[in-house]
């Protein structure tokens, strides 16, 4: 398996970081910031599923836990968001560890594991929706402060850079992981768990480390989501939408590749937005759900033409 070097990663990050210096509309900046949040969630998923082969359908459980922890720590405990952020990541990681412990120890794999993660996310959604502590069905509002010490920025570019910094961190973590012993073990477990065990790999420990890391990265995406929209309810935090976004992007971008989640998110969200505008122009009114149709077609095309995602196509090109 090829690994993406430091250079292409740095180049992509520099280009993205430079974008706000150009003439960027507010809509565009919002779009990019949102894309960074989704990318981060997808990067978390990619570690567990892309590298480790454990396909989760419930990364909302981690996204939502990160998000709720971020919101609740600020609102109920008055904790500064900069401090709440790492605590929320740890909380999401702990939920990941717990779900991993229960399902991997029971030797759940494949679709069974996917279903169990989905079920956990749904249980969390229902709990958050009914529990007063999390604001119940009304959700949690974080008051607008526009103060960098509160992780809120008058200049929206700063939020984008913050989110990009998180994505960059995850890029380098993934890059280091792919080249590490743990990364080799993780990929070995994905490829053939029995063979890995025969070579001394503690499959359970490896999967637990992967899901914990994966969950805390996706949890960080939840934290950013709260700081961007300053509002949270159970369907936003634990809804299926984020589980789907988190897995579509790496599949389209390139499973298990370092840049796959980022590339996939930009393509998917970009196409979604473009198709909405284009179809609105053609038909003279919004066509609800048209972006989903386009995404569906893209996903089918991806599976048929580029099973290794866009990064796979890029590599084949580069080699030819």
């Amino acid at each position, binding site marked *: 398996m090829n690994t993406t070097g430091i250079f292409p990663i740095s180049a992509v990050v520099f280009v993205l970081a430079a974008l706000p210096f150009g003439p960027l509309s507010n809509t565009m900046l919002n779009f990019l910031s949102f894309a960074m949040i989704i990318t981060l969630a997808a990067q978390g998923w990619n570690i567990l599923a892309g590298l480790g082969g454990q396909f989760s359908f419930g990364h909302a459980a981690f996204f939502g836990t990160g998000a709720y922890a971020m919101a609740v720590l600020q609102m109920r405990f008055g904790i500064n968001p900069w401090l709440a952020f790492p605590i929320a990541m740890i909380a999401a990681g702990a939920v990941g560890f717990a779900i991993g412990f229960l399902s991997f120890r029971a030797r759940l794999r494949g679709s069974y594991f996917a279903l169990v993660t989905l079920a956990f996310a749904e249980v969390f959604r229902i709990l958050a929706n009914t529990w007063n502590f999390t604001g119940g069905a009304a959700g949690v509002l974080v008051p607008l402060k526009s103060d960098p010490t509160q992780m809120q920025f008058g200049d929206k570019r700063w939020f984008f850079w913050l989110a990009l910094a998180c994505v960059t961190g995850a890029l380098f973590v993934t890059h280091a992981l792919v080249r590490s012993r743990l990364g080799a073990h993780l990929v070995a477990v994905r490829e*053939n768990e029995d063979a890995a065990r025969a070579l001394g790999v503690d499959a359970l420990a490896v999967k637990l480390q992967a899901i914990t890391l994966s969950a805390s990265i996706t949890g960080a995406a939840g934290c950013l989501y709260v700081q961007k929209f300053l509002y949270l309810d159970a369907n936003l935090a634990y809804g299926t939408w984020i589980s789907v976004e988190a897995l579509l992007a790496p599949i389209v971008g390139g499973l298990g590749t370092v840049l796959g989640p980022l590339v996939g998110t930009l393509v998917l969200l970009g196409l979604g937005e473009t198709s909405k505008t284009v179809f609105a122009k053609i038909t003279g009114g919004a066509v609800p759900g048209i972006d989903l149709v386009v995404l569906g077609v893209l996903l089918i095309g991806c599976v048929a033409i580029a099973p290794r995602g866009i990064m796979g196509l890029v590599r084949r090109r580069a080699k030819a």
Partner: protein
Amino acid sequence: MSAALLQVRAVTKRFGGLVAVDDASLDVAAGSITGLIGPNGAGKTTLFAVIAGFEAPSAGRVALLGDDITDTPAHVRAQAGIARTFQIVQPFAGLSVLENIRVGAYLRHRHRAAATASAVAVARAVGLDQMLEKPASTLTVAGRKRLELARALATEPKLLLLDEVLAGLNPSEIRDMIPVIRKVRDDGVSILIVEHVMQAVMQLCDVVYVLAQGRMIAHGAPGVVARDTAVIEAYLGHGAAARMQSQQSIAASVPHA
């Protein structure tokens, strides 16, 4: 004689009503190549799985260097020095040859550079050094068997369990592999080998155990075992030994099962 490297004592393994291994015992002496032969379905692979920790025995004990490892998980046994190959090869198909071997090398080498160097050295020893960057899925049968061997060797084992690494190879490939296996032993790795290719068993093994229908029916020097009446009958059916004796010596040619 000092205690054997591996001791298998009265191991039984049942799958539901089927007794795959029935009260089988064997020793692998340190520094030896010990053979395990027997007709198809005799329980050889099952016994390997019990030794390597992939199947828990229904009864009996397994000890490595005198330490009871019967309840030790497979990956811990690998750390303790037991490496196995799979009869049905289990490559990491999506990875290159080097990456495959390096997974094994990571057991004793934490850092990537050291693990890579060790993996390359092992690849050279088994003759895979020309295809390090090739995807494992593109290897021929012979290549895959070598890869199984290389990965196991990369864990730097004390005891190597080889399950039919010569099966599916043509005669010239078999001739190439025999010195490779002997060299492994000469480098200090004890070997327990399951093999149907009798020519290899005769050339390589110091001691041979014979398993038939789960029971250990004979053991001893290869030449002696091959002439054993019970062994011949296990392979060829009741009365075969008498018929064969009237024909010729069969020292080197117990037919393939």
